[in-house]
Structure formats: C-alpha cells, structure tokens
C-alpha cells in the first residue's frame, strides 16, 4: 500500500481563534473522500488549513514532500466584464480540456460572461479539477449545477482519481457524496 498523500491527526484549524473540532483523516492517491457536517462546523476552514491559509491551532498535519494542491472555493471567480474565454481560464491553471462535457467543449471560445451561471461554474470548477495537482480540494462543487452537470462532475472526479489524484470533497449534497466518494468523514461527529 502506498503512503497517504496527506494525513491529519486531531487537527484544529481557525483564523483568529480555533473554529473546527479536532479532525483526523488520511487521503491516499486515487481516493475520493467526502467531508460532511452541519453548517458552520468549519469544513471550509479545514480545507483552507490544508493549503496553509488558515491557522492550525492543534493537532498534526503531514503532507507528502512536494505535494501539489489545488483548491476550489465556494466563491465564484470575478469574471464579469473581463475579456476572458474558457480557453483562457484552462490555460491559466494549466488544466486540460480533455473530457469536458460536449455542452461546454464547443463553448471554450466564448466569453465567460456570456455563458450561463451553471456553465461558468462548471468551467471554473473544471479549471481547478483538471489542473496539474496531486490533491484536489473541492468546496461544495455541486452548487449551481443541474442534474447533467452533477453527473458529469461525478464522472470527472472518478476519472481524476483513476489518474492517481486524491480528492477531498466538502458537500451538502448527500446523494452526490454517497455516489461518488469512496469514504465519508463526518466533521463534528460527537460534538456537544
């Protein structure tokens, strides 16, 4: 068995003060792990701590040396009014367009602000998901996606995992998490 890409043990993260309960998990190459829990429990903060933006107040975080992380946040990139097309976006993160759903593949030359909200969100997500990375952290990726978009996202996650990346997915979409993830970790389980 290969060594995990990243491991946390009793990790407590936050900003000015701790906001997450202690969390232990490991993520291996080729694995999709779902991170679920109630609103405000600190799931997004936990992802930020893994990238070194949020502070670690307690516990341990071990990352494989040279690990390349990619993080998609819930904030939509500010594309409005910018002369950017889909190809620009993929080039920016180094993502490949291979495997892009047909309903987006032929719109790569369109300005991003001329796409629908769902198309824009999927493309913004794709730019992170298909960027060169060992670990991909996704925060509520199914937001703004219709049924077809969610299905394509599931396929894309499995494909990325099949290529050897480790994926950590924060989501409220229980059906999506149950369908796509190999393991599910409950944040705040047993919290008073």
């Amino acid at each position, binding site marked *: 068995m290969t060594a995990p890409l990243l491991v946390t043990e009793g990790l407590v993260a936050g900003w000015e003060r701790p906001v997450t309960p202690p969390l232990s998990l490991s993520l291996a190459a080729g694995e999709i792990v779902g991170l679920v829990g109630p609103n405000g429990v600190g799931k997004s903060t936990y992802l930020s701590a893994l990238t070194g933006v949020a502070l670690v107040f307690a516990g341990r975080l071990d990352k494989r040396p040279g690990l390349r992380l990619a*993080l998609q946040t819930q904030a939509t990139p500010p594309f409005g009014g910018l*002369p950017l097309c889909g190809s620009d976006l993929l080039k920016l993160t180094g993502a490949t367009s291979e495997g892009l759903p047909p309903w987006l593949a032929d719109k790569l030359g369109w300005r991003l602000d001329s796409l629908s909200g769902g198309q824009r969100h999927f493309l913004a997500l794709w730019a*992170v998901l298909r960027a060169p990375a060992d670990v991909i952290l996704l925060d509520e990726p199914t937001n703004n996606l219709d049924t077809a978009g969610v299905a394509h996202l599931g396929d894309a996650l499995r494909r990325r995992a099949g290529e050897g990346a480790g994926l950590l997915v924060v989501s409220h979409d229980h059906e999506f998490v149950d369908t796509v993830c190999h393991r599910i970790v409950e944040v705040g389980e047993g919290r008073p």
Partner: protein
Amino acid sequence: MTEFFSPIFLQPFLIGLCFALLLPLFGCYLRLRDEWLAAFAYAHVAAAGALCAMAFELPLVLGGAGLAVVAALLKRLVASRLAGGTAYALLLLSGWAAAVLLTSNLPMAERLGHALFDGQLYFADTPQLVISLACLVVALPLLAWLSRHLLLVQLYPAFFSARQLPAWRVHLGFDLLAVAVLAVATMSLGVMGAFALVFVPPWVAFARASSWRRGLVFSALLGLGGYVLAFLLALQLDQPFGPVLAVVLIALGIVGLPNRRHCT
C-alpha cells in the same frame, strides 16, 4: 506635415509612442484589479514629484518616479486599513494639492506645471527618449512574465495560495513597475494624457474583446492609433496635446464599443 519629421517633433513623438504602447497594456491589468483610479492618483503624485525635483534642481524624472514609488510603497503598507479606492483617492488629492501649490508658489515651476497638466510634450529631450525606450524594453517582458500570476491571483486566489505562491510579491512587483512606467509617462504626456491612455483603451477592449490576448492587442492598437491621430491633429490645429488625445481616444472608444465575438 513635413514639420512632423523634424527632430523637434520626431523626438517627442517617439517618446509618446513608447507609452502609447505601454500604458494601455498596464491599463488592462489595472482594470483587471479594479485599480484604474490608481493610475490617475499616481500620475498626480508623479507631477508633484517632478515639481519638487525642479525646486531642488534634481532631474524631473527622478523626482516624479521617486515620489510615485514611495507613494506606492506607503499605499501597500496601509492598504489593509483603507478599504476600496480610499487610498488612491487620498493619493490623488495629495498629489493634486501639492502640484498646484508648487506651481503657484514657485515661479520656475509654472511652465512645467502647465505642461504636466496640459500635456504639451514640451520637455521631451534625448535623455528622456532614452529613458522611455529603456522603460519599454524593461517593462514589456516583466509585464509578460507577471501576466499569468496577476490573472491567477485575481481570479483564483485560493488556487494561488494553495500552490504556496507569495501573492504579495506579485502585487508589489506589479505596483512598482506600473508606478514607475506611469510616472515617467506623466513627465512626457502629462497627467491627463497618461491617464487617458491607461483608462480608455482597456475600457473599450474589455467590452469588445473575446479573449485576454485579444483584449491586450486591441487595447494596444487603440492606444497607438489614438496617439498617432492625436499627435497629428494637435500639431496641425496647434492645440495642446493632452486634451486632443483625450478627445480622440474617447471618440474612438465610443465608435469601438462593443460587439462581442467568440474567440477560436
């Protein structure tokens, strides 16, 4: 038209041409960062710096660029305390107040003050041409190198930080480069001329272009075309250059707005 080819006019023309290419490109990145007001502010600070330099018998470019760079460093220090465009508004007011007071109180500064605010290209000389060409040769490759980082840090700040890339270096590097170029440009084109080239071409390009590269090309071409046309018109009609440039760019901008197309 033959007077255009005399060294008296050719030298200022070439100096302005350097910035007619550079400023619209920098304007695209300032607009990306929603910092176009910064150009207006730093142009005023640079004007004040040049007038200060004149008072102390120092090179004008040194005074203009020096004060603008100091202002950019101070702005970065207090950026977290001043939200939105407050820092730039304060810089703009300070620069304008200092420039006007110096112009009013230093007899020698009156002519320079008017040139800076009217944009007459009066003070263009051979050393300034060399500095302008150096600006072009240094700033273009640096901007090209910064480009992807500037886009990434603006659109995907979390992705940027996840790669452990220091955003402050990108911000500071671009700030200093843009301020230095803008300050030197202000010495030749004047405050409003420089601002017009930073603001108008990117404004039109952002509305019209279908990709980032096309936006840059469109912006640069509009800046160059507008500049050449304005220079010839100002010369033929014997009008101050700065206002003519602003009018020409605005007219071209209105004609050029917008017809979105898809890139391939």
